[in-house]
Structures are given as C-alpha cells and as structure tokens.
C-alpha cells in the first residue's frame, strides 16, 4: 500500500499513500460489530470475543449495543420471520459504510430449517450479505476467518472510500445501490424484495 522508503534516506519515517487506501485500511481494521445474537451461533460469537480467541487482535473488540455506532452486523443464528422486520430495521439504523456477515448455516440459507413455517431461508433475503460463514455453529476460528475475508474485501473494494450523502434521500439511494451491487456480486438474481438487479 505504501511506497517503501529506504532506511537512512531523508524521507525516513514518511509513508506515501492515497487517502482512499488509508481510509480503507483504517475501515477494515476497526470494524465495530453490533452486539446482538439470535441463536446458538451467538454463543460462539461470544467465545470469539473472549480472551482465548480474542477478536481484538483484528480490531473488532468494540461490540456496540446500538446499531448507530456499529459498522458490522454479524447475524449469528436463525432469522425467524418475526425477527426479519426487526433485523431489517436494525440494519437500516446503521450508518454507512456497513457490512454484514451471515454466521452459520441458518443465517446463510435457513440451515436445518428447510421449508419451515417460521424461518427465513437465509438472511440475504432481508439484508445484503458480504461474507457467509458456514458451520453449525461455526467455530470461533471460522468467524475470525470470515472477518479477515471481509477485511480483504473492504481493502480491495474498487469503489472510492468516500462518498457523500447530501441528505436522507441520498442515504437511502446509497443503500439500495449498495444492495443492487451486492446482488450483482453474488449473482443472486431478482430479489424477493422486488426490483431487478442493476
């Protein structure tokens, strides 16, 4: 990312980079997850927070109890139909830029609750997902791997790091644009939420 400056040169102690890269680097290494859990995956998420696995090594130890201070929504567990509107509301309350990890089989695709009367078949029907972590539940190592992959994804994002949202309307536009892009990325096809992929 930075140009390497040889030791002893007059430029020593100076790194040259672009604002864009620096922002993305900072963003990727201080992902603040939202503190909420839906099912047994949340227990593994809590273990990931603990001293043994120590998610703080990757800059994500600050679990925020409010969506307004969080960048990352880890969806740990089964999203039932009653919870889906609430998950969507929490996601909408998070400020941009925001990222989502679907943790475990249930959040990724419904898991063991196939054809259930009460379970949403994957949280990607409700909110756009960046990284899917398989497992039932995934071990803390798997979640950490998912987090690192998200960090790579953020650093390699071709979009500029700074985008200005002038007012609320623009923010909503940004969100829908983002969802369309993510759908394109994952080749999900037309969403069940309505609307064609961009």
């Amino acid at each position, binding site marked *: 990312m930075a140009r390497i400056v040889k030791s002893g040169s007059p430029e020593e102690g100076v790194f040259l980079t672009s604002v864009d890269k620096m922002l993305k680097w900072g963003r990727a290494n201080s992902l603040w997850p939202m503190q909420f859990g839906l099912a047994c995956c949340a227990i593994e998420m809590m273990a990931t927070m603990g001293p043994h696995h120590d998610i703080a090594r990757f800059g994500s130890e600050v679990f925020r109890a409010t969506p307004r201070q969080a960048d990352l929504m880890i969806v740990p567990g089964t999203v039932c139909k*009653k919870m*889906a*509107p609430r998950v*969507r509301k929490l996601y909408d309350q998070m400020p941009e830029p925001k990222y989502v990890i679907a943790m475990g089989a249930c959040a990724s695709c419904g898991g063991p609750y196939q*054809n*259930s*009367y009460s379970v*949403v078949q994957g949280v990607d029907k409700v909110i756009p997902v960046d990284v899917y972590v398989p497992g039932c539940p995934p071990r803390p190592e798997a979640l950490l791997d998912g987090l690192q992959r998200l960090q790579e994804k953020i650093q390699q994002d071709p979009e500029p790091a700074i985008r200005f949202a002038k007012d609320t309307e623009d923010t909503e536009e940004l969100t829908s644009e983002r969802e369309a892009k993510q759908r394109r990325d994952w080749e999900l096809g037309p969403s*069940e*939420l309505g609307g064609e992929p961009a």
Partner: protein
Amino acid sequence: MSLADDVIDTVQEHVIEEDVQKDKPLLVTDPEGLRDVMAEAQDAGFDHLCFVTAVDWPKDEIEDNAAWLGFTEEREVEDPDDEEDEDATETVPVESKGWHLDDVDDGLMEVVYNLYSYDEGDHLAVQVWVPREVDQCSVPTVSDLWAGANWHEREVFDLYGVTFEGHPDMKRIFMPEDWEGHPHRKDYDLGEQQYIYREDGIDKVTKDAGKGW
C-alpha cells in the same frame, strides 16, 4: 404412597386409564372431569404446572399405531375353524382413552399436562383426548388454578388449535393474529408460505413474498 396415587384414588370416578411411564404416573381423564382432577391435584400438593402441550393424532396415524395406543387388542380366537391352529389370534377393537376407534372421525388431539410438587418431588401427567376438528377441539382452562397455565394454553391454542374454555385471553401468542392455520398440526400446509411484515407497529401476515419475509 405418593401424591399421585392420592390424587388418582380421590378422583377415581374421572380416571379413564392410569399408567406409569418412565417411572412417572400418568392418568387419562375426559374434558368433563379435567377441572375436578386438576383442582384435586393442586389441593394434594402439586403446586407447579411444568407445561401444557398437545400431540396431534390424525385418524390414519391412530390406525397405524392402534395396538400401541390400545385401540386394538390381540385375542386368541375362541373357536378356530381350523382346529389344528389353536394359537390363532384375532385383532379386536377395544375402547381406549375414552374413545372407540369407530367413533373417531378426523382424529384425536391429546392434550397433556405435567404437574410437579416442589415439596415431595413427585410428578403426575394428566392426559385429555378430544376430537381434533378445530370447532370441537376444546378443553376447560386451568389458568385460574395455576396462573402460569395462561401462556401455556395460549401457546397450545396458537400451534395446535386447541381452544381452552374460560381462558381470560384466548388468542395467539407467537404467530401474528391473522396467521392462517395452526402450524404444529400434522395437516398444516407447508407448501403455501405465509410472510410477516410490520405495519403501524403490528406484525401482519401476507402471502406475497415481495411484501414480507
């Protein structure tokens, strides 16, 4: 003598069957006798209602498990036509759980109450078998005896469609109020999905996948 035996002796007139399953006493009664049995059980010292639940038995499943449920019995044929075959048996329908298999139309709903006594550590299970048709599937409430039964009965109503007569607030507890059907019934249609969305602070149901989740 355990508390459960006391109860069974006292309400003998309402006991249709008694049994011991997994070291725990069980009695089967009918909807008319349920209130007396439960009031007696509470007086005897069963101060905790662990849970209320139900088991759905459509007719074909009762027929498949008829012998196990006690609706049929193997008997030796008294006068075998073939005299050499003296051990011949025949399957005879018998009354069980207060029901004769011929009187069952659509099937039966087994409503189960599990009682516990904190002082004695005793268990007692009480079963009531009622018709499973939604309009006839009804038992009296025990929510005035154990306040905790209130939500248990609402749950059984929500998921199994059993109505509890005399319940102060007989409405769904988990699913939105306009949800169609009772999901834990064996004939619940999983092919037609229902979706939930929020409107004016209330959960609403739609069959349009684009409108809810």
